[in-house]
């Protein structure tokens, strides 16, 4: 009977561990991190099992307490939510392992609250994805956001300020979303997504639903850092502890993107979305501006975490642009990019954490060719992730670009096609710049003496997660036909 309760188990695992960690952590604070690894590991296991179960048996609708909607709340475990849950929980598992050596340096003495908050945030993210109820989604969104603000505030000196700024902007976004939900409830009398989707065709060309949709897109767009609502992101990602960034960056904006997928493609459907104004095209254009803006700003950065943060703005643009195309190839490309980008960014942010731990900084202008000798495996992982970000075959990043390109062509949308291509070049600029620093001697300083650079590689608890994620990019590249086959079946139209 485990299958039918699976959606609840995933969320409850995080509830359980957010309580267990303080309980044990008060006694022995060094137990917090292993418990967090255990919790996220169990959740990841459930997610893998659940997705296999979905492939064999189909979707699950889980009614809490047996109360069916509209009275009760349901969790919906279908292809889309299953896929997102799988991606975020597996990535979180690796980030939790990786944090083992970082915790003592980046948030000493705060291990217990930190990991408890991390579990709470994961609860929020999983809840947002799994719930089938718009208001319940808001509740989970706030759980995730509040714990997220706290996690970001645990960081460098500027982190509390960045977190406060995020709090203000994020709360405004959440409120706009809630306002949109209020509109929808007034119009339809339900909060359940499936019920609402059945009712919406009758409200074709309704100005009220249109307004609600815009409110929800803007509200969620803040969380997804959709241009021009991305202002909170660079500071938050830069100043937060490396583990927080590695956890939030690959996952947080993706979950917001998930809500956009659910609302635009599942609940409203693309016809109703575009009934009054070409809303999907506008969202796509914003995404494209974000893609170019993020890439150009990333080139201008010298701090690695900040560069990666701007890169995240750009990459989330790919996902939302693919969504806005609303055709099978664009959809498959966007979802594949959810997976690819989660892995690439987790890997890259984890590497920035490794460098901060070892060198005390992650300032690209101070990188030199001794890193090649000091951190051979770290830099090998970095190279793979970077080349995948640039999008060279056969690495995973190439294929999301390929399907997105096919999607833009199917819509005869040449502008978006050009953006996808140009952005890859910009990615190449900011990643090859780092590779040049690390793999080549400085022409002015000449060759390093061997004594200056001896092997000083990070510990196994850091190398394995980054290494596995990097290798998985190659595996996904070769196995993407299978993944995309599954994703194309998820496409709702």
């Amino acid at each position, binding site marked *: 009977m485990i299958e039918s309760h699976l959606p609840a188990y995933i969320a409850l695992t995080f509830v359980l561990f957010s309580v267990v960690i303080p309980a044990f952590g008060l006694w022995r604070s060094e137990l917090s991190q292993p418990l967090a690894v255990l919790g996220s590991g169990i959740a990841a296991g459930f997610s893998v099992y659940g997705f296999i179960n979905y492939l064999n048996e189909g979707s699950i609708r889980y009614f809490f307490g047996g109360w069916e909607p509209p009275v009760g709340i349901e969790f919906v475990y279908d292809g889309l939510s299953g896929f997102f849950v799988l991606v975020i929980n597996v990535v979180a598992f690796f980030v939790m392992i990786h944090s083992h050596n970082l915790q003592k340096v980046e948030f000493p003495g705060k291990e217990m609250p930190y990991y408890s908050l991390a579990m709470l945030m994961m609860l929020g993210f999983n809840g947002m994805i799994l719930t089938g109820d718009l208001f319940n989604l808001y509740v989970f969104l706030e759980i995730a956001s509040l714990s997220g603000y706290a996690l970001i505030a645990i960081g460098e000196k500027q982190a509390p300020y960045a977190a406060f700024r995020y709090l203000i902007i994020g709360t405004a976004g959440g409120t706009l979303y809630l306002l949109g939900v209020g509109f929808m409830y007034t119009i339809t009398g339900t909060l359940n997504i499936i019920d609402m989707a059945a009712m919406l065709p009758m409200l074709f060309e309704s100005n009220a639903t249109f307004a609600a949709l815009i409110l929800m897109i803007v509200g969620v767009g803040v969380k997804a850092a959709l241009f021009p609502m991305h202002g909170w992101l660079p500071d938050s990602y830069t100043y937060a502890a490396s583990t927080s960034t590695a956890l939030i960056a690959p996952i947080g904006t993706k979950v917001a993107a998930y809500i956009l997928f659910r609302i635009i493609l599942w609940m409203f459907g693309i016809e109703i979305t575009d009934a009054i104004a070409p809303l999907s095209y506008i969202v796509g254009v914003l995404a494209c501006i974000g893609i170019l803006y993020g890439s150009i700003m990333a080139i201008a950065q010298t701090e690695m975490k900040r560069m990666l943060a701007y890169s995240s703005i750009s990459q989330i643009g790919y996902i939302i642009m693919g969504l806005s195309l609303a055709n099978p190839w664009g959809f498959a490309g966007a979802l594949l990019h959810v997976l690819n980008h989660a892995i690439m960014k987790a890997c890259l942010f984890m590497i920035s954490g490794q460098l901060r731990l070892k060198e005390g900084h992650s300032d690209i202008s101070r990188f030199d060719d001794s890193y090649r000798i000091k951190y051979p495996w770290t830099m090998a992982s970095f190279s793979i992730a970077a080349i995948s970000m*640039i999008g060279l075959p056969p690495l995973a990043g190439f294929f999301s670009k390929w399907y997105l390109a096919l999607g833009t062509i199917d819509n005869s949308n040449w502008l978006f096609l050009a953006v996808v*291509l140009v952005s890859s070049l910009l990615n190449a600029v900011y990643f090859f710049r780092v590779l040049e620093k690390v793999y080549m*001697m400085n022409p002015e300083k000449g060759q390093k003496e061997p004594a200056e650079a001896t092997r000083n590689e990070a510990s196994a608890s850091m190398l394995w997660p980054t290494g596995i994620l990097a290798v998985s990019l190659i595996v996904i590249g070769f196995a993407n*036909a299978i993944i995309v086959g599954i994703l194309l079946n998820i496409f709702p139209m």
Partner: protein
Amino acid sequence: MDLSLVPLLAILVSLVVVVPIMLSSARPNLREFWTILAAVIKFVLVLTLLPGAMRGESVQLHLVDLAPGIPLALNADPFGVYFAVIASGLWIFTSFYSIGYVRGAGEIKQTRYFASFAVCLSATIGIAFSANLITFLLFYEMLTVATYPLVIHNEKKEAIDAGRKYLAFTLTAGLLLVAASALVYHYTGTLDFTPGGILSDADLPHTAMLLLFILFLAAVGVKAGIMPIHGWLPAAMAAPTPVSALLHAVAVVKSGVFAITRVVGYVFGVDVMGDYGLNDILILLAGFTIIVASLIAFAQNNLKRRLAYSTVGHLSYIVLGVALLTPTGMTGGIMHIAAHATMKITLFFCAGAIYVNLHRTEISNLDGIAKVMPWTMAAFVIGSMGLAGIPPINGFFSKWTLALGSLEGDMIFPVIILVVSGILNVGYFFPIIYRAYFKPGKGLEKYGEASPLMVVPIMVTAVLSVLFGLFPNLFFGFYDLAVDISLSLFNSAAP
């Protein structure tokens, strides 16, 4: 014997050998042994495919699906085998030459050099055996990435700038190829290279076809050095000379012209090319490149840069032959792939030997060097006269076939280009020979001929150039193979 795995093995052998090369970093002799071993095995593997190719057979292998409906697939067809034989055969000579060169010149990071070189060869053979555009794209990008460490090899400022320029050109080209491939997939639902073309049934409007062709041309024309997108090639001369010799005279740039031939003959098809008038663009661009590159070559005082511009010009001979859309012209173009390869590699080998031996790179410093390096300069004379089209060296033969091909298509303009270019070739090579043989040299007393590791490969490639010129069918029936490849493109299009 089942040959289906041979193309894959031929690609993998030089990829796998990277591991032992890296591990033998501290023992140079062992490390170089691996390179030579891989080169020989690769050549033998490619040769086993040759008899089948002579009979017009292809060896196909489907690996995994790279995307739904698009497999990672290899197809060692006659044209692919033809190119692979040239690239892998010359790799053996280049490997020996490289050993002499990097040790003589005391290059840094030699392990990286040999490892990258091996990956480049894998990518080149992969390009030769790609059965569809995605597989091709994969190896095309792999070649880009693997060549980069070789271009920046000495890590001086000039080399790093050249590397950036190289990446800017080739990565842009790769992206255009992504777009072009996606468009082809959208219009036809397939990406498989097919003799006679896959766009013949697409029935596209004229502008769409034209834009698609320009997209392809920009994508693969970069590596083929078509003007005005040739700029990376002279800059890439910052690389060590063996790299310039094999990659920037044979493997990389020939991958470009190979790709143009694939695009013209196997994606668009000769009928579509003719019907839409696309070949006229190609003829004009190629003609322009041949003449202008030769003129620029005059102005270069650096020997390698002069050779680079010469390469740009000669690559367009091949493009011109393909663009003529006549069977004989196509044969001439395909022949010139082999002919230019043996001659230009000889010339670059000579330039490298002069640099390692005498530390001279500028043409104005080459006075009298024939007295101390007689063998090297004799080879230089053969290579340069061959490029100018003087019989009996193989450059004459391919050029003659090209001229016949353009007359077959009732075109006189290409013939004029060929003649003028021949004169220009003599013009920019002769001063080098004159200086080396007839001007008195200074400060050469203590020097002798370069190391045998370099001189022997030079002599072999020079002799090959002459032998191919005298007997085009002497080795592997190359001329017949080129004729068969060319005819296959026209016959399949005819019905």
